[in-house]
């Protein structure tokens, strides 16, 4: 990473100049993602884990599964909570302390993608209705930033869930007790895939790097499920999209998502 302001400015000018010819600074096509590597089982003490590299953006996600009380109005469903944070070691601008609005948005968009696609059948995670359920906690930590944290965190979270094992709990005297050595596969219904795009001028580019994000007018993250439906969406950035651009983005999200889904489903 270069820290010189002048070099960064020159780079941004170059990005815009190349885009006007339909090219990207790293040689990718407009709708190409960076190379995605997914490694699972990296944290054996977690019930599931994954380390994802999307270009130079790196994320590690761990899944912890433990008994919990259900939410008051959702006594017939297990608990699913996805969080995300940018570790202070990930970026010279990141600081320890309470999360800012960007980090909160990141965590909520990752959570929404997994929740709204109904990736997990939470009804299968109930131990005693209204009293005791299994909680699945999916915590993602960004280790290095180079743009598109949304997709990197989302793929890591999905990979960690797909590869996790659910410990068995039995009810004894109204309390859940762990049954040693018995695990099952998580109740997976679909594989959510998020695709984040940036609009720079009239161009829609997939998987923006940090430099491209610095030039973008607006951003959109669209999450699709295995049936080719659109399940979650978040627009960001200080400018807008036309209707035509939003429809094009949904088509790109579906076609790019299909490729990523294949890669993720190999982990099952």
């Amino acid at each position, binding site marked *: 990473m270069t820290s010189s302001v002048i070099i960064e400015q020159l780079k941004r000018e170059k990005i815009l100049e190349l885009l006007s010819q339909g090219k990207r600074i790293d040689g990718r096509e407009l709708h190409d993602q960076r190379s995605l590597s997914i490694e699972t089982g990296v944290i054996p003490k977690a019930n599931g884990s994954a380390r994802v590299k999307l270009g130079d953006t790196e994320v590690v996600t761990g899944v912890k599964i433990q008994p919990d009380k259900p939410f008051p109005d959702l006594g017939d469903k297990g608990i699913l909570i996805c969080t995300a944070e940018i570790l202070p070691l990930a970026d010279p601008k990141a600081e320890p302390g309470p999360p800012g609005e960007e980090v909160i948005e990141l965590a909520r968009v990752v959570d929404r993608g997994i929740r709204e696609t109904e990736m997990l059948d939470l009804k299968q995670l109930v131990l005693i209705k209204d009293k005791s359920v299994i909680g699945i906690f999916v915590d993602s930590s960004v280790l290095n930033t180079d743009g598109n944290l949304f997709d990197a965190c989302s793929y890591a979270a999905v990979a960690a869930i797909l590869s996790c094992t659910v410990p068995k709990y039995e009810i004894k005297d109204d309390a859940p007790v762990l049954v040693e050595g018995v695990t099952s596969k998580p109740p997976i219904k679909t594989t959510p895939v998020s695709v984040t795009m940036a609009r720079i001028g009239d161009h829609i580019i997939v998987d923006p790097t940090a430099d491209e994000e610095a030039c973008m007018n607006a951003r959109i993250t669209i999450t699709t499920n295995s049936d080719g439906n659109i399940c979650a969406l*978040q627009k960001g950035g200080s400018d807008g999209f036309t209707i035509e651009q939003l429809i094009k983005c949904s088509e790109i999200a579906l076609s790019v998502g299909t490729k990523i889904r294949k890669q993720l489903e190999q982990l099952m």
Partner: protein
Amino acid sequence: MTQLMNENGIRCDGRRIDQIRNVSIKVGVLKNADGSAYIEFGKNKILAGVFGPRDVHPKHMADQDSGILRCRYHMSPFSVTERKNPAPSRREIEISKVIKEALQSAVILKDFPRTVVDVFIEILQADGGSRCAALDAASVALVDAGIPMRDMVSACAAGKVADKIVLDVNDEEDKEGQADMPVAYMPNLGKITLMQLDGILTPDEYKKCLETAIGGCKQVYEIQKKALMEKYFKNGEA
């Protein structure tokens, strides 16, 4: 579970699928604010106050080349059924961010370097779609404050309820329905500046939902304009 739609396609609150709730907007309701608006959108009751351009505190937030926009969306503890903790929740922080971004493309702040325009939104009573209603009030309050703008921002949600695409999702429909898509739109520039979705839609439903929401935004736009005319041209000066 309540029945969300009857066999005649009438929704739980008596509306047709293409009908928005009653909306009324009043401009200039706060004496101390530079601009303000009060909106009732169904059962939503929301106040928006705009201050600035004014000095930025803390100073390090200031931009040497432009004014900045800040936005706070806050729910009163008594605005919902169960008392809400008054501290800003993660949901409120996210909504503050998306509302700010939705307004950013409308306001022109480059002539006010090193200043801030603060938009404060208070949800006094919440129904479904409070972020859209809040944005509608904030947009009118910015106009009332005399902030230069490229266009007004009008917001309305659409969604999927009982397998149908419906306009302006209410509280019950949001909780029990199949999808909710809040959209903010600049009607004269044809730009969507806020969009979110939760719920499952096919690609065709996605298009229809988006078009339906934009239709709602256009209806809200007329109500916003009328509210402004009411304050500024009520003596027939227009």
